[in-house]
């Protein structure tokens, strides 16, 4: 070689020290799920093995995320750069308290969905690939939470999107095709907006590393320049579409009730929250000036989202569609936290996101059990479930209290924080909207409880007289399976725990929030002490 006389100083551009063994936790969630998804795909004909293997890998995912969370809480932000290239040249995975918390809670929900799927997905559904798609969805979700590179965030979004398309049309039902068309086209347009904004951001700063962009944005003299304002607006539109905020929310109630109920549960828990996470990451950490500039707009969107979700939920008699609107109402609360933008309000938004991931998944799972017991998702056609199972009625009441934000369950604390933050910021309308939306949610959930559980039988029968619905499955065999009750029990236990002992979660969300509002630890982790 001609260049043999040149000695290359690798220390300029490469990390010369070997990666600490514990730092491999950073990429473990994506690798475990990718490996598990591929193995499950190879075993697509052995449908009983698939469930065991899938649940096994999801258990590993929970353990890896727990390890990651512990390590982040001990060591602060950890960064791993691919190929040992120093940032901003290599592709970075940076994990702070916010990422690790979201990823950990997400993996718990995915594990519960894997368990629930073992009972509710038949062998045809497994052969079509429920477990591979679920694991690959988690690859995308984990990657989106853990990456420190904004273009990679786009790529991970697409990974979870294509896996979610697969899950959504699992079963090839006519209604699913209808829902999937709307979900697919609108989400693809949303990610294209994301890509436009990323391209423009690259054009301005010449870098894609989030920490690098954050430093360069902070160094700008004129933070609200025209191009940067365009970028911020495009990001807001893209993430609002992902999170189903008003007015770009209509794909959600059109599609979330069509797939198998466990698929709806995972979607409702995780997918919109990835959008909220990206919104917090980009608007609070990378573009804080643009967030301040747009905070009135974000507050308006939050209020309208809260009201759309709550009124939409009141207008539905189909249980799953009602829950879809409740997902939207929850997004409004989280947006309210982003609109205020203080450490307190962001910690409220993070706590609410964690609560919403757990409670929405649990509610969809519970509605699946309602369908098995009562034979329908329609409020008019079910009743008398209290007589069939008083324990289940109690669990549903807990979930209803939690989703409405009533004490003593997990929804109460983040709502208190968010309302407090909104009022002390002088945005009384925002605080009022959160409270009003919670009140309407209480009405909607109370109505479900009254009609499905308290009332003796379906509409048109004499009260107190349970009438067998013609054609309704008895559900005895499926209901006897602990695989349906165990995940619901785990999620409900978490809801009760976070409600009665909120200190741990409060500390976690406060650390996550201060980590994005003042990202010194994040920047130091990426660029070293400079």
């Amino acid at each position, binding site marked *: *070689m*001609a*260049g043999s*006389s*040149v000695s*290359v100083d690798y220390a300029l551009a490469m990390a010369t020290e070997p990666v600490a063994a514990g730092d491999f936790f950073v990429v473990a969630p994506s690798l475990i799920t990718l490996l598990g998804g591929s193995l499950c795909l190879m075993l697509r004909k052995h449908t009983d093995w698939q469930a065991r293997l899938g649940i096994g890998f999801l258990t590993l995912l929970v353990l890896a995320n727990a390890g990651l969370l512990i390590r982040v809480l001990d060591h602060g932000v950890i960064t791993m750069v691919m190929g040992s290239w120093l940032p901003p040249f290599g592709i970075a995975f940076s994990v702070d308290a916010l990422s690790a918390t979201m990823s950990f809670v997400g993996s718990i929900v995915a594990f519960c969905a894997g368990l629930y799927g073992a009972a509710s997905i038949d062998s045809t559904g497994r052969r079509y690939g429920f477990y591979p798609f679920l694991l690959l969805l988690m690859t995308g979700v984990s990657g989106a939470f853990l990456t420190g590179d904004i*273009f990679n965030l786009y*790529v991970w979004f*697409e990974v979870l*999107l*294509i896996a979610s*398309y697969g899950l959504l*049309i699992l079963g*090839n039902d*006519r*209604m699913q*095709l*209808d*829902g*999937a*068309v*709307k979900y*697919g*086209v609108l989400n*693809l*347009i949303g990610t*294209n907006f994301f*890509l*436009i904004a*990323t*391209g*423009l951001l*690259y*054009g301005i700063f010449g870098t894609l590393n989030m920490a690098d962009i954050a430093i360069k944005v902070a160094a700008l003299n004129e933070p609200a320049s025209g191009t940067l304002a365009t970028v911020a607006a495009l990001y807001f539109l893209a993430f609002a579409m992902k999170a189903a905020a008003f007015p770009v929310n209509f794909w959600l*109630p*059109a*599609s979330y*009730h*069509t797939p198998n109920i466990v698929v709806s549960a995972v979607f409702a828990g995780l997918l919109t929250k990835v959008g909220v996470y990206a919104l917090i990451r980009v608007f609070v950490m990378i573009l804080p000036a643009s967030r301040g500039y747009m905070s009135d707009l974000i507050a308006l969107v939050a209020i309208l989202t809260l009201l759309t979700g709550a009124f939409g939920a*009141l*207008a*539905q*008699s189909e249980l799953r569609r009602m829950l879809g609107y409740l997902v939207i109402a929850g997004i409004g609360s989280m947006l309210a936290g982003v609109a205020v933008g203080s450490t307190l309000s962001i910690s409220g938004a993070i706590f609410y996101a964690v609560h919403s991931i757990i409670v929405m998944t649990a509610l969809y799972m519970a509605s699946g059990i309602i369908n098995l017991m009562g034979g329908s998702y329609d*409020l*008019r056609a079910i009743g008398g479930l209290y007589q069939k199972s008083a324990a289940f009625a109690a669990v549903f009441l807990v979930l209803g209290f939690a989703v409405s934000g009533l004490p003593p369950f997990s929804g109460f604390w983040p709502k208190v924080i968010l309302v407090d933050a909104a009022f002390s910021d002088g945005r009384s309308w925002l605080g009022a909207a959160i409270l009003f939306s919670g009140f309407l949610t209480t009405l909607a959930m109370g*109505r479900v409880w*009254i*009609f499905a559980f308290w*009332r003796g039988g379906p*509409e048109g029968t004499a009260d107190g007289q349970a009438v067998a619905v013609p054609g309704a499955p008895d559900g005895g065999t499926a209901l006897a399976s602990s695989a349906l009750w165990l995940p619901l029990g785990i999620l409900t236990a978490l809801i009760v725990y976070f409600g009665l002992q909120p200190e741990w979660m409060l500390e976690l969300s406060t650390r996550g929030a201060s980590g994005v509002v003042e990202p010194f630890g994040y920047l130091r982790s990426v660029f070293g002490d400079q």
Partner: protein
Amino acid sequence: METIVVYLIGLFFAVAVYLMMSRQIVRMLLGVAILGNAVNMLIFTNGRLTREVPPLIPSHLYTPEVATANPLPQALVLTAIVISFSFFAFLLVLAFRAYQELGTDEVDEMRLAEPENDQSPPQGY
């Protein structure tokens, strides 16, 4: 050079938005495909357009001597092309299956998941 490409990108965006506002899914998908190409060209233009200077570094230097073509946008665009192509292919098949099952490719007539005359929930107990 940049100016011409920028106008072209603008034209692409206009066509894409026009097509995406259509009620036929096939037209919407064509709009999405054009949108994807517009975005790719946008990324490419943002990474500076330089003709005929490959990003080669002479063997006795660390950095190139002159301003070269930027290789990074090419990598980004390559990723984006692969992704948008696969999504376009998937959605095309999905739209075709929906047309087979539902007998229409007009979104206004696809009302299976959200029935048109949906009854309101029970009013009294």
